[in-house]
């Protein structure tokens, strides 16, 4: 017996989602078929809402339901410090930590020569404009400590050099709770370079 067309349609859509193969799609669709109509409606509405109500903040490029976002429009945040991150979800990770009181700039990716992703594909021009137009004291480069993240930080530092703003890079080295015995030579070297006076 062939599957009803409506089921096939749902399966096809589910399989497009990241990390969902045919088996998981099948399981999810059975779950939804057994559930109430109300439950299905809520899920469908939630999906539509993220497309209708979520935009990118025109200032920091983070995802938000109002533009400018909550952080960019908050008068209590320090407007002289900018934390530059790769992706919108990095903003939430920093915010969950709760110790950073400045504002953000989301690059929407990272410079990756091997993938052909260059500065024009990111929000780097816009970052330069923000530095030019605002009286910033510090730009913190919080890209990942891998080859792409490091080289993107180097590129931005070079680009912002002509401006009168402090450019800093988040510390690299040993993870908290780690063990020197198992650290590789590069990580150990970075931790020595980034040492702090006590």
């Amino acid at each position, binding site marked *: 017996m062939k599957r009803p067309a409506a089921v096939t349609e749902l399966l096809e859509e589910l399989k497009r989602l990241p*990390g969902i193969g045919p088996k998981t799609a099948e399981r999810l669709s059975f779950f939804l078929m057994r559930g109430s109509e109300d439950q299905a409606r809520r899920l469908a509405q939630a999906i539509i809402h993220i497309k209708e109500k979520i935009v990118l903040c025109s200032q920091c490029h983070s995802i938000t339901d109002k533009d400018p976002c909550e952080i960019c429009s908050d008068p209590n945040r320090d407007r002289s410090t900018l934390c530059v991150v790769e992706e919108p979800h990095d903003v939430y990770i920093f915010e969950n930590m709760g110790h950073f009181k400045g504002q953000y700039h989301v690059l929407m990716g990272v410079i990756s*020569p*091997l*993938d*052909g992703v*260059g*500065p024009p594909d990111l929000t780097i021009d816009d970052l330069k404009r923000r530095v030019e137009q605002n009286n910033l004291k510090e730009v913190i480069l919080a890209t990942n400590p*891998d*080859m792409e993240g*490091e*080289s993107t930080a*180097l*590129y931005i530092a*070079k*680009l912002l050099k002509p401006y009168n703003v402090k450019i800093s890079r988040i510390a690299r080295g040993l*993870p908290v*709770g*780690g063990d020197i015995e*198992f*650290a*590789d*030579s*590069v*990580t150990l*070297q970075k931790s020595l370079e980034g040492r702090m006076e006590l």
Partner: protein
Amino acid sequence: MGLYKTPGIVLRSMDLGEKDKLVTLMTEKFGKIKCVAKSARRMKSRFGASLEPLSYVHILYFGKEYQTLYQLNQADIRKSFQHIRENLDKLYRGLYFVELIDSLVTEGHPEPQLFDLLLEGLETLQEGNDLEPLCRLFELRIMAGLGYTPRLDLCISCKLDPGPGELGFSFLRKGVLCGPCTRKYQPETRITPGTLNTLRRMLSIEIRNSSRLKFPRGMEEEIGAITRRMVLAHLGRELRTYAFIKNMALV
């Protein structure tokens, strides 16, 4: 199941799912291979910084013979080329070498000569300052290593010494043409005898001595027109990293 141990250089490292990485390496003993590094994305992964592109590592991996995906057990850093990573002019050229190797070498065939070329290329890049001659040398030597050494001693058509005067170069027939044959066959590119002499030296010079190759003004473009076009003609497309080398000069 086999367990393999070899020096290698990381060409690419891509995220695989939430925890793992897919790593492409150029190894000394087994050529280009792909490995899965389990849990390598985790902050406290035992692989640490070893799987970053350009890293020269000693690896231990296992899998069935003739399969295409292995499992990486261990990677110990021998050289991380920090100096290349901290200088964008050098980094983009290092990535250009890596992309050339990754694009031109097929998986699973031992190519010790090309492994040596990449290692020496990166070592010279780390120490040296004459970056353009090194890139041109790398292009010519990777083509030679793949079996496409251009004929530079005698004219490819009449087999006589090319002699002085304007000469030609044919990418199709991979070699130099003497003056009369150049006028007769109208090859794609014209070169001077000085460029020919430099190209000849470039076939035998040690990579680490690339700084001894002084390209006089004007010749740099002529050499590039030959070595870069040999790669492009073979590959049929531009390399992604090349634009970064050019654009970096503008920042």
